[in-house]
């Protein structure tokens, strides 16, 4: 099953299970969503539960906050994470903080599904990776699945979660295939997944870079280097134990993400490991991430600004050398 179908499967099952679950967003009705995640849901649930909205990101996200506070479990599809800049106020000052500010009176069970990343020539305003912003907000959870099965299981858990969840997909993962359990399937938030076991270094990564890292791991294995690839799956809550346990075994850390390096979540991981497992490290923790630039349009340039498989191989080799 494709990644986008797995997401649609989770939406359909949760909407059948709970009438309070609704989806709001742009282009999600007849068109089925910019990436065909909601395809077929309009026919199944009708226009009141698959609410196609005007282009009003702040209003839509804010309406979801209000709906969540009063009894619905809304899911907002934000077409590109790059548009989050328009809705940050409702996400950060309202959704994330209501529970705390109101002394526990309120719950905001909403999910904002969106997608980021480069690779399709969509250029600077449609290709960013902004997970770091959301991880820096007390009150939000941040989920980033890399496989169809995780996409289904994590989305299901996110919809059932009573806190606001930022669910970040990747535009180039939608057409990736994988085995997906049929029927109800949950993957808990806050549990990383060892996508490949290894002994020589730990690669901590998420979203599309998980696939690149696994490819890189195969190439490294050919050269006798066994990389352990940890897919964080959710950045908040963060599975610190999984990361630390692996580093204590391999004694080497490489964090890989597509977002620009400066201020990226890779800094959090590398700093946390340096702080908690300093003596277990046989080499400096390394980060491989996007260059500090917006994403360029030209096809031959786009790949040059975010980590590719060979970049991971190169840095991993330096790390174990």
């Amino acid at each position, binding site marked *: 099953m494709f990644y986008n179908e797995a997401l649609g499967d989770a939406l359909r099952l949760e909407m059948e299970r709970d009438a309070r679950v*609704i989806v709001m967003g742009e282009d999600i009705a007849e068109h089925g969503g910019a990436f065909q995640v909601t395809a077929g849901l309009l026919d199944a649930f009708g226009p*009141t*539960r698959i*609410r196609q*909205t*005007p282009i*009003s*990101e*702040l*209003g*839509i*996200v*804010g*309406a*979801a*906050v*209000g*709906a*969540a*506070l*009063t*009894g*619905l479990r*809304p899911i907002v599809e934000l077409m590109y994470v790059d548009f989050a800049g328009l809705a940050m*106020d*409702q996400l950060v*000052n*309202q959704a994330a903080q*209501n*529970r*705390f*500010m*109101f*002394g*526990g*009176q*309120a*719950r905001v*069970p909403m999910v904002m599904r969106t997608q980021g990343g480069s690779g399709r020539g969509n250029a600077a305003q449609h290709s960013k990776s902004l997970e770091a912003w959301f991880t820096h907000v*007390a*009150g939000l*959870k941040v989920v980033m699945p890399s496989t169809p099965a995780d996409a289904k299981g994590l989305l299901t858990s996110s919809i059932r*979660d*009573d*806190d606001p969840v930022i669910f970040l997909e990747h535009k180039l993962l939608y057409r990736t295939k994988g085995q997906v359990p049929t029927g109800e399937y949950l993957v808990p938030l*806050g549990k990383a997944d060892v996508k490949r076991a290894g002994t020589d270094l730990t690669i901590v990564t998420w979203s599309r870079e998980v696939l690149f890292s696994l490819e890189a791991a195969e190439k490294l294995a050919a050269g006798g280097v066994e990389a352990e690839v940890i897919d964080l799956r959710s950045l908040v*809550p963060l599975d610190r134990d999984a990361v630390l346990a692996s580093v204590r075994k391999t004694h080497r850390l490489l964090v890989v993400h597509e977002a620009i390096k400066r201020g990226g979540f890779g800094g959090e991981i590398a700093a946390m490991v340096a702080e908690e497992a300093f003596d277990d490290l046989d080499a400096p923790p390394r980060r491989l991430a996007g260059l500090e630039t917006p994403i360029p349009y030209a096809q031959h340039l786009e790949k040059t600004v975010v980590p590719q498989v060979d970049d991971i191989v190169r840095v991993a080799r330096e790390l174990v050398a």
Partner: protein
Amino acid sequence: MDKATALDLYRVMRRIRDFEERATVLFGEGKLWGTIHSYAGEEGIAAGVCAHLRDDDWITSTHRGHGHCIAKRADLGRMYAELLGRETGYCRGRGGSMHIADTSKGNLGANGIVGGGIPIATGAALTAKQLGTDQVAVSFFGDGAANQGAFHESANLAAIWKLPVIYVCENNQYAESLPVKNAFAIEDISRRAEGYGMPGVRVNGRDVRAVYDAAGELIARARRGEGPAFLVADTYRHEGHYYGDPRKYQTKDEIEGWKARFDPLVDTRAWITDAKLATTAELDAIDAEVIEEAKAAVAWAEAGPPASPISLPGDVYASY
């Protein structure tokens, strides 16, 4: 208007005025923290609108939210306790004046973000529509908030989806130090409603009867499923924007002139007695009751334990 309604409106307005005066004193005594924004002069709007709301109807409020909270039947003791940073406060001392909420009475919270409550009330109305109830949502906000994109996007959503929400704009002539005449190129803010396809009504917010009547119609209409409306209530804030505002942007004459022209409490007493709905003595009795109630509330609040230490992740996340 019948006697019970009139006296209830008066009682609510008196409660609000008394609360603002008492909070100002507490602030002066150094017992409060942060800042407070007085609703004095605007009491008739919250009272007149909320008189039509049930406990299961929702409101979203503003930084100037004490009045809305009281009109929505909040417990005064828990309000004072919040201002005093007590565990017994509505928000366990975490929110303070700018974030008091009482979800048990449908108050989805004061808001420190100008315009921040507008999309939230719109979403609450969506819940009512989605679940097929006859609940309504009211969003209170100021003239300043009407220039936020959040108002535009929300009003349009409510109009196309025919949501049961009333947008109540309290035009008190200023957004902090910015006079409305410098913030709008139109004189009548309610004309904006036309651009969304909803009724726009302008009332004299200084007269609680006018507000009561206008809000009654629009709220009933929304309950019947006939969609949203925009109500603009013209008023003036008797105090500064916040406690301690030097008010450099206003002249003494302007301030005194407005105060001389109207005081919702005085005016309400006048029409109630003129209309022979009640005697001065009856109104004085209400005042006395309100004062007793308030004193007891403050005493209860001050006796409450200080807000408990922050406990994480529980205070922030429902589950983690």
